């Protein structure tokens, strides 16, 4: 066989009708999930777009934007008269402490992003419940 398309067709014919247990998400009970969008694959869950919501609120967007902490060194300065040496001193201290400050900002950013993700998850669930319940109707079991 020399044609890749021919090989693919042969593979499709051979695979037709075979069980595909290994391809099913969550085939191994109790295992950590590695499939992307695993929550989206659950029955009834909403497929996620980049923001996990079709129309996310401005507040949620801001939350995600603010989750990543990146202090601007240019905004560290002294307002005193002849404050230039103090500005240099402050910026020098930041440079000296950079390893420590990077740790702090990374830890805080990670925490913030996880909170934002959790909020997006909750918003998604609320949206789904609202969608299921319909206008004035009870939530489906």
């Amino acid at each position, binding site marked *: *066989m*020399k*044609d*890749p*398309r021919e*090989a*693919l067709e*042969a*593979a*499709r014919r*051979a*695979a037709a009708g*075979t*069980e*595909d247990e*290994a*391809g099913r998400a969550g085939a*191994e009970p109790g*295992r*950590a*999930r*590695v*499939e*992307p*969008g*695993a*929550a*989206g694959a659950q029955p009834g869950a909403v497929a*996620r*777009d*980049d*923001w*996990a919501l079709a129309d996310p609120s401005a507040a949620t967007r801001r939350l*995600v*934007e603010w*989750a*990543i902490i*990146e202090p*601007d*060194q*240019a905004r560290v300065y002294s307002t005193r008269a002849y404050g230039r040496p103090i500005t240099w001193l402050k910026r020098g201290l930041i440079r000296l402490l950079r390893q420590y400050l990077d740790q702090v900002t990374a830890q805080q*950013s*990670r925490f913030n*992003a*996880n909170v*934002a*993700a959790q909020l*997006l*998850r909750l918003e998604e669930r609320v949206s789904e419940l609202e969608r299921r319940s319909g206008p004035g109707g009870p939530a489906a079991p």
Partner: protein
Amino acid sequence: MRVTQFVCAAGPVDAVTNQGLAWRSVFSRWGWDGEDYAAHIAPGVRARALRPLRGWRGAEREVVVLHYSGHVSGLVEVMRSAPRSLLVSHNVTPARYFWEFEPLDAARCALAREQLAALGRDATALAGVSAFNARELGELSGREVDVIPVLFDPARLGPAGEGEPPGPPTVLFVGRLAPHKRQDLIIRAFARLRGAVPDARLVLVGTPLNPAFEQALRELAETLAPGAVSFETAGISTERLAAHYRSAHVFLSLSEHEGFGIPLLEAFHFGVPVVARDAAAVGEVVGEAGVLLAAEDRVATVAEVLRIVLADPELRAELRERGRRRLRDYDHARTEAVMRSRLEALAA
């Protein structure tokens, strides 16, 4: 001519950083001067290869090339002060792949898409490293976008091996261990292949998204194909990477999102037959040079394709030959000429 380059986050094994540095060598060869800057510089980047972006002061008649791959605070404002700029979009992975596993990366990707749209509206000229990226940037910016492929230098990895590699049938994938690369599906397909080819082995090369994700993949591999899957996740040297390609019988990519896919070209260079899912930019990079799986193809089909390729030397030889021919489309000189014409037009 003076060309300044910006990279979003520089790292010692980051593909975009390496592209920036490779272009700098080309610019120097053309007699063009300029400097390279990065918003974030990770430890391990060659000393003085890049400067911090906050130190950039624009120069008259300077052309700024931004290699965009991720969100950087304040980048839109910085780029607005560059009178002539070329935005090259390398790839922003959709955030949905990361919320579950690494929310910080997800937040960065979500913000990056918005920032890419803003940058696309402001930059003087736009390009993507693949037609897929160009299309995506065109949709975000509402403007025309060129394609300037990545600079691929096969010599960097050394020569390909001679003939078929010795050793057991080996399936290889090279790429970050991340949800959109779908190593989980590769493991599942490989586990199925082992029913027909019991001595087959799988090698996954790439830095992990995080330790938890790596651990989950390792557990999956240990459950479905105990002892047959090896991971190479740290300290991957060029020599070691080349050795993996030289010992592979087939390269399998089931990625759902690739802005380009340099490992596909590397596989072609080493004469490794390619089996890949036709997703994002993968189809246009592979062309007719590999077995292209459709999105709806099941794991059983992937395993069957692998079995056929491993069992058929004629097919492997044909795929190797097609791969080598395909590489000519990504010839260094051709890509250089495209970039040069774009930059000269910008500077004029």
